[in-house]
């Protein structure tokens, strides 16, 4: 339960991060709070899109899905169930994979860093670690019940 609470908080944070980056992409917020324009290089590059959709949008959708899954796992009979944890680990795993790809592009292709993208990569990694810890705990809990 503690894990799911922590994940809910982290995913809400990640949601606002990617919402901010999406709004910047759409032109709704002005100055991106970043150093000498390297965020702009990242955000205006061709890699800021995947299948024609800004990558920040995937972040918004992904974090929102994880938030919903973690809140779902905190409701009544689902607290003891493992399914929400599976969903969280699956989503966070995909998110970490996507973040590794984006960070690789920043480091080796663009040679420019967007610090909010890096913070997002850290947040999604923390969510995956927390999710895996919850998964391990639920495994040992099941084993104890089994015995």
């Amino acid at each position, binding site marked *: 339960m503690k894990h799911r*609470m922590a994940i*809910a*908080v982290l995913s*809400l*944070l990640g*949601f*606002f991060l990617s*919402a*901010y980056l999406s*709004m*910047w992409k*759409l*032109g*709704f*917020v*002005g*100055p*991106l709070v*970043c150093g*000498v*324009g*390297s*965020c*702009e*290089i990242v955000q*205006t*590059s061709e890699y800021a899109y995947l299948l024609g959709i800004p990558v920040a949008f995937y972040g918004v959708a992904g974090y929102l899905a994880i938030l919903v899954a973690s809140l779902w796992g*905190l409701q009544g009979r689902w607290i003891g169930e493992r399914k929400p944890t599976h969903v969280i680990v699956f989503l966070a795993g995909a998110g970490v994979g996507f973040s590794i790809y984006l960070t690789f592009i920043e480091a080796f292709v663009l040679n*420019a860093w967007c610090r909010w993208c890096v913070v997002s990569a850290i947040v999604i990694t923390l969510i995956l670690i927390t999710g895996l810890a919850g998964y391990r705990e639920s495994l040992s809990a099941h084993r104890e019940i089994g015995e």
Partner: protein
Amino acid sequence: MARMKGFYMMLGVMAIVGGGVLAFMAMSGGSPLPSGPIDPAAIDAARSFGGYTIGNADAPVEIVEYADFECPACRETWALTMIDVKERLVRDGLVRLTFRDFPLQIHAHARAAHHAAACANEQGAFWAMHDKLFLEQRDWASASGSAEGKFRNYAEAIVGDIAAYDACMGEGRYRAQIQASFEGGVRLGVNATPSFVIGNRVYPPMSYDDMKAIVDSLAMEQGQ
């Protein structure tokens, strides 16, 4: 149960604070210039715009400057280098000078300033507006709200038809063109302003003498 209540309260506070911060950021632009998404198709279409050019079309050397009207370094380079470039190299037919928009996001009024210059260009007054914006940079860059009132004052003294200028600003006619210039610069590797593309290279700001030396050697290569 009390623990869950505390948790939901914390999550609720986070949601309200986060949403509030984003809403504040979205609203604090304070610009009558239209905001919001620029149609990517319009940006593509504007790519053919090559910038604002003066000088002999047959000049042996072209200097393309990527600059931001709100950037102090651009103002300095304008005063120390570019006025001389225009008065000497361009006038002598040695250089064709092109100005391209590169408004940085870190500058709150830059996009509006570049847009004001684009609207002045409709009435043949780009370079007059360009000089005025750099000259008055310290005044308008420090404006706390929108600086567009100041731009309009400059325009009033420069353009003939202020109603046409207002209409141009009101509909944000050149937002896509400015974005296309910016993205074009990024593709060339421009990541700071001012940057100069001379020949096939991107240069940082420099003195008039250094720029003239580059121009002379390129002109010589071309047998001029």
